[in-house]
C-alpha cells in the first residue's frame, strides 16, 4: 500500500464522518439534503476504494441520485406552506449523556472490530469453487441470483410492499406540481439525456452476469430516466389504476417465484437453477427484475396517488 493511497483513505474517511455530522448538525434542511447528496457520492468513492464496484454503481445511482431526488422532492412538497420550525434544543446535560452513551457503544463495537483476524476467507472460497456452475461470472451476481437467490426474492418482495404501502395511503388532494412546461433548455436536456441513461441501463444489465452490474443497478439507472420524464411533465405520475401498471410492479416478483416453483417440477429444490439453464434463467430474471425495479422506484418517487375526484385548487375557477 502506498503512502498516497493511505493519505487518500484518511481524507476520505474524515470527509465521510464530517459530512454525516454536517447533515445532522445544520439547522437548514436544504443544506442538510445537499450535504447528504454529497455524502452519497463520497460513499460511492469509498465503495470503489474497497473494490466493491457493484455497490459503487448502486450508490452512484441511488445514494447520490435517487435518494437525493426523493429528499428534495419531499422538501419541495413540505416547503409549499410550511414555515420553518426549529429543532427543540435538548439540555447540554442530556446531549452529553447521549453522546457518552453512543460513544461508549461505538468504542465497544470498535474493539470487537479490532479483534478481527487479518486474513479471512469467509464464504469466498466456496463461491469461487462453484462459480462455474452458477451461470454468472460476476461472483456478486452469482450470490444474488443463484447461491442466495431466496434473499433476493424476499428483497424484491420488500420493494413491492413499499409500492403497495405508498399506494394504500389515501390519495392526496391534487396539487399539480409539474403543470408548467419545462423551459427550452431543460426540455432539450432531458430529451438528450433520457436515451443516454436508458442505454447505460441496458449496458449495466447486459454486463451484469460477467462484470459488476445487474438488475438493481440497471433498474436504478432506468428509474432515473423515469424520474426525469416525470419531473418535466412528459409522463403523468402513475396512479396504479390500470391492471397493466400494477402487473408491471409485480412482474419481477412473480417471475422469480414462478421460476423457483417451475424447477421444482423437475425434482429440484426451490430456486435450484439447472446448470444448463442457469445463465439463460439468470438473464431472463434480471431483465424482468430491471423493469419492475425501475417502475417501482419511479412510483416510490411519485409517492402515492393524487385524488382525481378533487381537482387541484389552482384549477378552480
Amino acid at each position, binding site marked *: 500500500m502506498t503512502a498516497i493511497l493511505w493519505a487518500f*483513505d484518511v481524507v476520505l*474517511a474524515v470527509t*465521510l464522518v464530517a459530512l*454525516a455530522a454536517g*447533515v*445532522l448538525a445544520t439547522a437548514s*434542511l436544504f443544506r*442538510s439534503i445537499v450535504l*447528504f447528496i454529497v*455524502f452519497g457520492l463520497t460513499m460511492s468513492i*469509498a*465503495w470503489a476504494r*474497497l*473494490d*466493491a464496484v457493484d*455497490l459503487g454503481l*448502486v*450508490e452512484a445511482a441511488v445514494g447520490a441520485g*435517487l*435518494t437525493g431526488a426523493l*429528499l428534495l422532492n*419531499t422538501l419541495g*412538497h*413540505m416547503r409549499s406552506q*410550511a414555515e420553518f*420550525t426549529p*429543532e427543540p434544543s*435538548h439540555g447540554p446535560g442530556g446531549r452529553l449523556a447521549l453522546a457518552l452513551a*453512543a460513544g461508549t*457503544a*461505538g468504542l465497544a*463495537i*470498535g474493539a470487537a*472490530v479490532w479483534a*478481527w483476524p*487479518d*486474513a*479471512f476467507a*469467509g*464464504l*469466498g472460497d466456496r*463461491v469461487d469453487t462453484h462459480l462455474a456452475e452458477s451461470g454468472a461470472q460476476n461472483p*456478486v451476481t452469482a*450470490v*444474488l441470483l443463484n447461491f*442466495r437467490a431466496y*434473499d*433476493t426474492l424476499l428483497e424484491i418482495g*420488500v*420493494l413491492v*410492499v413499499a409500492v403497495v404501502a405508498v399506494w394504500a*395511503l389515501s390519495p*392526496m*388532494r391534487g396539487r399539480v406540481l409539474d403543470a408548467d412546461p419545462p423551459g427550452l433548455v431543460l426540455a432539450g436536456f432531458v430529451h438528450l439525456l433520457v436515451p443516454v441513461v436508458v442505454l447505460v441501463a441496458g449496458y449495466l444489465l447486459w454486463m451484469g452476469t460477467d462484470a459488476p452490474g445487474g438488475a*438493481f443497478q440497471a433498474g436504478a439507472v432506468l428509474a432515473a430516466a423515469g424520474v426525469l420524464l416525470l419531473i418535466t411533465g412528459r409522463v403523468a405520475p402513475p396512479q396504479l389504476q390500470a391492471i397493466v401498471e400494477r402487473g408491471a410492479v409485480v412482474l419481477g416478483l412473480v417471475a422469480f417465484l414462478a421460476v423457483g416453483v417451475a424447477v421444482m417440477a423437475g425434482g429440484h429444490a426451490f430456486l435450484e437453477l439447472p446448470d444448463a439453464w442457469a445463465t439463460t434463467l439468470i438473464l431472463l430474471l434480471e431483465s424482468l427484475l430491471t423493469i419492475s425495479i425501475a417502475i417501482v*422506484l419511479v412510483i*416510490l*418517487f411519485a*409517492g402515492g396517488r393524487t385524488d382525481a375526484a378533487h381537482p387541484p*385548487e389552482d384549477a378552480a375557477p
Partner: protein
Amino acid sequence: MTLTLWYALTGVALLVVGVYGLVSRVHVLRQIMAVNIVGAGVFLVLVAGAHRRPSGAIDPVPHAMVLTGIVVAVSATAVALAFARRLRADADERTDGAAREDEARAG
C-alpha cells in the same frame, strides 16, 4: 492498521454519529437521513470485512448482503418520505379548511 480496519472503524464512527443524530433531532427528514447514515456505517463495516481474503480477491457474500440492504433501505426511506408528505398534506388541508371557515364566518 489495515485497509479493512480503517474503513470498518470509519463505519463504526458513522454509526455513532447517525444514532446520536437520530435520537437528538426531531425533524422527520433529518431523522430519515440519520437512519440512512447509520445504514451506511453498517454497510461499510460489512464490506470492509470482505476485504481480507489471503488471495486478494473480495468475499462476494457481504457485497451481496449490502446490495440487498441498500434496496431494503431505499424502500423503507421512500415509504417514510411518503408518510411524511402525507402528514404535511393533512396539516395543510386542515389549515386551508380552517382558513375557509374563518372567511365564511367573516363574510
